[in-house]
């Protein structure tokens, strides 16, 4: 099952001031698969995710070496259009971050800023992607109500619809079920499994069972180091590194 790599990370180092957050990371993220980035809190998972769509640019005092390729273009190259790069990726946060506007406007936000003005088209897009995340039936009568009135679980699905409405190739999830109740979380997980057919999905999670349920490919980070990466069944059933073994079995990692 040799899949094409969608995102390639080569010798990536990230420093916040003097703190060395990511240390010489080299990863290949396969296309149209779910890749789970696992590891304990503070190991650099979120930072790695934010490198992919260059949200890392917003941080103070950040220094970066190495390369990240998306579709074989170096995203940190000066000629790379960051807006185009970000349009390629939908992002979900831990806590659903809705925009301060109506449900409709939330979904239409992406297409609108990328130049779509036709209201009929916009309405079609909004309906299509709300259906895509199974939210349409719940909100079709109050599309112009504030999105803030939705439940947290509905908000996260709305955020997913908003991301997808941009027609991305990649979906990035930073522990997207973190703030959700089990039923809402399950809905999001199922959606991810469906989306895998058409999108490359990168999922940061520290819920091991979630990673096992969803992932095709696993990347294990520990204290900024890449410990292990590989197809999910291999990493979970037969981890090569002792740190991965400890982490997967729920023990403390004793530093070698």
């Amino acid at each position, binding site marked *: 099952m040799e899949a094409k790599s969608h995102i390639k990370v080569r010798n990536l180092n990230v420093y916040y001031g003097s703190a060395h957050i990511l240390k010489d990371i080299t990863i290949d993220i396969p296309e149209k698969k779910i890749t789970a980035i696992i590891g304990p809190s503070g190991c650099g998972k979120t930072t790695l995710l934010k490198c992919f*769509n260059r*949200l890392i640019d*917003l941080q*103070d*005092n950040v220094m970066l070496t190495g390369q990240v390729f998306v579709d074989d273009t170096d995203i940190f190259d000066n000629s790379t259009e960051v*807006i*185009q790069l*970000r*349009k390629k*990726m*939908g*992002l979900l*946060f831990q*806590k659903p*971050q*809705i*925009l*301060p*506007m*109506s449900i409709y406007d939330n979904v239409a*936000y*992406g297409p609108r*800023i*990328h130049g779509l003005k036709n209201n009929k088209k916009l309405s079609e897009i909004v309906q299509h992607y709300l259906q895509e995340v199974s939210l349409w039936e719940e909100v079709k009568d109050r599309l112009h109500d*504030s*999105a*803030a009135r939705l439940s947290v679980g509905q908000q996260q699905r709305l*955020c997913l619809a*908003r*991301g997808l409405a*941009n027609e991305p190739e990649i979906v990035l999830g930073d522990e997207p079920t973190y703030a959700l109740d089990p039923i809402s979380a399950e809905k999001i997980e199922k959606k991810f499994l469906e989306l895998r057919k058409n999108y490359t999905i990168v999922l940061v999670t520290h819920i091991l069972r979630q990673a096992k349920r969803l992932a095709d490919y696993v990347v294990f980070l520990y204290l900024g180091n890449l410990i292990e990466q590989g197809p999910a069944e291999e990493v979970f059933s037969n981890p090569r590194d002792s740190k991965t073994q400890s982490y997967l079995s729920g023990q403390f990692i004793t530093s070698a």
Partner: protein
Amino acid sequence: MIKRRKLVELFFVSLMKVATFIVVGSLFYIIITIFIKGLPAINLAMLIQTPKGGYYLGKEGGILNAILGSLLLGISSSLLALMISLPIVFYLNIYLKKASRFALIIRFSFDVLFGIPSIVYGAFGFTLMMFMGIQASLLAAIITVALLILPIMTRSMDEILKTVPFELKEISYALGATKLETSLKVILRQTFPGILTAFLISFGRGISDAASVLFTAGFTDLLPYSLFKPVATLPLAIFFQLATPFPEVQQRGYAAALVLTIIILIVSIGSRISLKKFTRQVLK
């Protein structure tokens, strides 16, 4: 031991209550004084007429010239200040990074400007007026008052923009929005109630300041009709009337103060009500 800690607690709570009472009490004391002294002298003629000759000696007329002048001055100077403040606060909060030294310098300058007495702004406005070759006029007053309220408006809007969650900006950028689009379509919406409040606080400050308009607005018995002609203002109308030796004219001064206070009260109460309409979509 517990008894002592409870006593200390009681002592400090009492201190807090006294301090709060001093503030709220003085506000009510001022408002009540103005009402008691001003209400008997207020009448319709005062609100709808301009001063006839000798108004300040106790003759017929009203202060419509000052009411209109102050409203015009307050609104225009707040709008002018807004046009300068908004770009500044968006630049500070969206374009500059948090740890930016430049942002630190800008904020510090506004804090310094904040503390400059309004008479100094008046004097500065006067020299500016001389330099531009215009006389004491509505225009000169608008510029001076706008400068006076600029630091207040900027710093209060700045505090409001600081409260915007970082994730909200991030998600907008993540969808491919530019900083400008994020500012106008997301941040402005999220902070609109706060920005409106900052605008109205500044309006209240601008409309009620006397020292800055003393040299720059001049005074006239006529209704405002040109940007380049002197304009009457309520604070100066109050000042002139209270400064006369005639008790009945002084009473009219209190009546004028009452008019000014009511204008500011209407604006702040009205804004509270209209705010509800705008906070519907704001994220808590």
